[in-house]
């Protein structure tokens, strides 16, 4: 694989070209192309079953498309394992929160630092000397995330005990701990009340500003999508039906039909 290039803001970070994904006879994604530019918030929207999460899974390397190719930071790939995606700076959160329920907020976010740990398992087993220094360094980074997401009060609480909105925030924290170049958010605001949504929007925008992270998100709340994102791609039945700024997409007849239905 070619070494990855450093991408400047405004440059293409990820390019999806003519990707098709099938599960047996089911076509999840058909010939979809779009790109993500560094520093933007890119939304992927569409009705249920449109292939949005599949698309994230493709970008993330979890699914391998039958056709098409993906270029990330200048390197084109057809197949990639998720952990390779992670080392290359792609982090994600899940539609249904996937945290370690029995572990504390702090430990869950520390997990996000695993890939950054240099010292071997045995050093860490003894938690001494260089391993301790490394842990302190990572803990500091994690504490900054905790401060950033304003979750100090739940630092030592097992996440299973937390309300849903806070769990989502912890999950975002774990993704941020990886210092991702590209952050994939799968419905970060599903099931939240208005106040939690507002908080989450603020965190997403702050993430973009503070860490310079590029964000691709799936979201159903149209108000949120239109406010947050710079560009929106719309899928329906695995096919791209629109791509553009929120205003362009809102005015697109195909999008209106997809969401409101058409008279037959």
């Amino acid at each position, binding site marked *: 694989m070619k070494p990855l290039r450093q991408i400047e803001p405004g440059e293409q970070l990820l390019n999806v070209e003519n990707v098709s994904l099938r599960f047996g006879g089911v076509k999840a994604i058909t010939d979809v192309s779009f790109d993500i530019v560094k520093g933007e918030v890119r939304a992927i929207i569409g009705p249920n079953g449109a292939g949005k999460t599949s698309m994230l899974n493709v970008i993330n390397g979890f699914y391998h498309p039958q056709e098409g190719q993906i270029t990330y930071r200048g390197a084109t790939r057809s197949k990639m394992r998720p952990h390779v995606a992670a080392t290359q700076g792609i982090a994600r959160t899940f539609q249904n929160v996937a945290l370690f329920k029995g572990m504390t907020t702090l430990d869950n976010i520390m997990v996000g630092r695993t890939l950054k740990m240099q010292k071997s398992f045995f050093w860490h087993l003894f938690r001494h000397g260089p391993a301790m220094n490394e842990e302190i360094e990572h*803990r500091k980074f994690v*504490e900054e995330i*905790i401060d*950033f997401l*304003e979750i*100090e*009060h739940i*630092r030592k609480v097992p996440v299973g005990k937390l309300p849903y909105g806070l769990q989502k925030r912890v999950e975002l924290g774990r993704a941020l701990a990886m210092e991702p170049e590209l952050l994939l958010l799968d419905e970060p605001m599903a099931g939240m009340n208005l106040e939690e949504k507002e908080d989450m929007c603020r965190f997403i925008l*702050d993430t973009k*500003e503070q860490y310079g992270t590029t964000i691709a998100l799936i979201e159903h709340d149209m108000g949120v999508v239109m406010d947050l994102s710079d560009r929106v791609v719309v899928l329906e039945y695995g096919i791209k039906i629109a791509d553009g700024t929120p205003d362009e997409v809102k005015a697109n007849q195909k999008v209106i039909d997809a969401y409101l239905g058409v008279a037959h």
Partner: protein
Amino acid sequence: MSANATASLDTFPKWLQHNAAVRPARPAMRHKDLGIWKEWSWAEIDRIVRSYALGLMAHGLQHGDKIAIIGSNRPKLYWSMMAAQCLGAVPVPVYADSVADEMAYVLDHAEVRFACVQDQEQVDKILSVAERLSRIEMVFYDEPRGLRDYDHSRLQAIGDVIAQGEGILFADPAAVTRLEQAIATGQGSDISVMLYTSGTTGRSKGVMLSASGCINAAKDTVAFDGLTDKDQVIAYLPLAWVGDHYLNYAQALVAGFTINCPESPDTAVNDRLEIGTTFAFAPPRVFESMLTGIMIRMEDASWLKRKLFNYYIEVARQWGEKIHNGESVPLLARLNYMLGEVLIYGPIKNVLGLSTIRIGYTAGEAIGPQLFSFFRSIGLNLKQLYGQTEAFLYVTCQTDTAVRADCVGPATPNVTIRIDENGEVLYKSPGQFVGYFKEPEKTAETMTPDGFVKTGDAGFFEKDGQLRIIDRAKDVGKLNNGALYAPKYIENKLKFFPNIREVVAFGQGEDSVTVFINIDLVAVGNWAERNNVSYGSYQELAGNPQVYDIIAGHVAEVNRQLADEPMMARSQIARFLILPKELDADDGELTRTQKVRRGFIAERYASLVKGLYDGSSEAAISTEVTFEDGRKGVISARVKVMDAKIWPVTATPSQAA
């Protein structure tokens, strides 16, 4: 420390220098940041504040300028106050949760030139009303997050101001001399701080407090409670509130103790536990939520633990207060209590972070006697104080040995209290305010010709010399028979029963006192569940005859208590009814801070009030309600009116206070 050495210290900057000289290495401040407690000694703070003051001087801050302080309890914001006071400027703390519009009023009225704020949120608020604030020149902020792309022509990080000042400290001896002179020439008569009242009754007013007033008041209470530089407080109350400025800022500088700033407002409980504070203040609702928290967790505890808890809480209820008040208690009870301390009381206090508290105060509203006794009985030295912004907090406070739930204590040392002919409490105190900023007519209204300040509260002295506050003076009236009638006093007595959520009393210009009662749906609902009483709605439960009987019992108990009080015996509750709907701020019946709007309710439920007084056993009402989802509807009901048991007057009425 001799009195002479500190007698000349009449401003806070002088006290800061004093502390830096006397106890340079003692911790002055701590702040939990990124999960770690950071500590600054008095010597370090002295140096930082000097640098900061030099930085502010370079920005043009001068004697008499106003500088707004907006945010939660952060060291940098406390330093901002100290640095401003070094230059003779006046810090104006503003409630951090006030909306931009309210903030604009205060900033404009106070004529602030600079603002020191916590974060982006506050910066945004100021920027959103910037066109109305022509005087503001610079905004300094503590946390840079989110502010990177802002226009920094009128914005600077506090850290940078301090760094800039540190440069001046080394490079410009002339500026340092100017600063030294500014500190040395600061006078006790200078305005030290300007605190805006919360403005529940009309617009907020800027209360000007003099430096020597603040310091003399703080000296008195530091001596009263024996505070030393070993004490620890946690600062979590709003900076703009007199309580924080007094209990934390002023007392810390005078006694030299440590102010601990929590990581965030949400972590205050946990942070208190880590620090082990020795002096604490909390409004009654904080204690209430602590107690509720314990009770709920005990419900889930194992059988043995629950039994132990219930047994020892009963032991504490019976003997705890007596033991702590030094009364004679049988040896066995004493030993049992000691065992309880090991098994139950100690661990509870530990979990709540109260183990090391020597002195705890509560104030702000009436505290339920049971709630108060609970904490006292498990060995927390909880006391009450009464005060207001205009007094620089203290008017009265209780001594360690004479504590009761229904009174607020005798006058604090050097405070003189007088009750005027209308029953209003007047006082003269060392810390009393100089006047309202730019509102001399309002100052004149509040002061008597001989220099006493009117509190606006009605009260009287009990036989043991403790002041009892009964109500706002303007709400206190007379019944037709001439008896004193204090609606809030009666309401509070009823509200201490868990079954009663809200009460509205009537009686002004009537022959007798009557009340509307709102039952507490959780408490009464719980009772209904245990007693197989089925109900479909609040209205149905409120009309249940058995519920009426329970409430009648509570009313009778209150009447019995009133009968024992010479002042109140003749204003016992004659009749009551239970309202068929819960009072709600959405319907305009309560204020947004959950205070009853008596006048509005009297008007809206006029037919019920009539029913209370015309002797009928039922009254009809039909009223509009707003449902949770915003829809409006009408409920109509026939409400039962019940006579209450009236007790013979046991106490002889003394002369009206």
